[in-house]
């Protein structure tokens, strides 16, 4: 019992302290995107944990508390959604058109390509909710039988890809509408994309964050319902 407790404490303290250190570096560097705490802190912990005599199992056990905080994090998303509500209501049709076609294109294409390439069920389950913002994607994927690490990896890879390629694709295809550009970035690259679209302007940026939050809602409701429907058939 006391060993488990000590392990939990050590995992939390090590993770939190390394995070604070990583955050300091990030802020000192004027928030360079490649110094994002997610990369630096992961690398540091990866190097540090063997010295603390921690193996994977005890670290994963010890850091369980973070998954509770992930759930309260999802609940907290209600606050930005509430603040954006007037904007959402004003543009409800446009936004619905955008997130439904974007979100469905994302889910349908993932299923189709995954099926063509013969990916396994666990991988597909972690792949499906990737257009939702990370905490929501995690909770949907775990209810489908996906794994947390794979889901995080997939969400991050597709967000980075969309962040880098997105603006070129939108320019190349001559998509000029501010709403279209903001929504596309917010849906495909979530927080990173919303941030990027703020560089284009206020309207694009607002649409970027609206795209991110509304897609999270769409994914979190339609995927579990769809699965239930398929199971019923």
């Amino acid at each position: 019992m006391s060993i488990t407790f000590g392990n939990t404490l050590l995992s939390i303290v090590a993770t939190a302290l390394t995070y604070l250190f990583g955050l300091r570096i990030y802020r000192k560097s004027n928030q360079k995107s490649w110094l994002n705490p997610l990369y630096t802190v992961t690398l540091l912990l990866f190097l540090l944990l063997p010295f603390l005599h921690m193996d994977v199992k005890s670290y994963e056990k010890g850091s369980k508390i973070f998954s509770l905080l992930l759930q309260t994090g999802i609940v907290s998303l209600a606050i930005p959604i509430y603040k954006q509500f007037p904007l959402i209501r004003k543009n409800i049709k446009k936004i619905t058109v955008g997130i439904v076609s974007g979100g469905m294109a994302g889910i349908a294409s993932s299923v189709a390509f995954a099926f063509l390439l013969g990916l396994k069920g666990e991988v597909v389950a972690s792949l499906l909710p990737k257009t939702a913002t990370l905490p929501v994607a995690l909770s949907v994927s775990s209810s489908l039988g996906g794994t947390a690490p794979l889901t995080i990896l997939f969400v991050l890879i597709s967000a980075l890809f969309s962040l880098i390629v997105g603006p070129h694709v939108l320019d190349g295809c001559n998509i000029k509408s501010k709403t279209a550009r903001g929504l596309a970035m917010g849906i495909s690259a979530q927080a990173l994309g919303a941030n990027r679209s703020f560089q284009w302007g206020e309207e694009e940026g607002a649409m970027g964050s609206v795209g991110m939050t509304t897609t999270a809602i769409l994914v979190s409701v339609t995927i579990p319902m769809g699965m239930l429907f398929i199971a019923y058939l």
Partner: protein
Amino acid sequence: MLRFIGQFVIILATLAAGNALSSFFHLPVPGSILGMFLLFLGLLTGVVKLRWVEGVANSHLRHMTLLFIPPVVGLFLNWGAVHIQLWKVLLVLSLSSLCILLGTGYSVELYEKRKRRRNE
């Protein structure tokens, strides 16, 4: 500090209510997401005031990254046991990201064009 804890208790209570709803009615939607809807409805109807939860929610969302670190570290420490074909996954991820970008971009642009034509 006390105010912070009080705000967090409200969020925790909403989460508990969401989880209870989800398991009681056997809903497919995760409890945390139902909790988000409950809190949103609470704010919309004025049952919950924004200033009761805003502080803790904002700092919570700002430090969300911290929560993703343990699983990613676990993934790398455990990389040998992960059997995914990386090139296939990368192909699926990039193709479907392109579909999302184009699907959203073209549909919204088309919608705006049609609306403008109708107004003229």
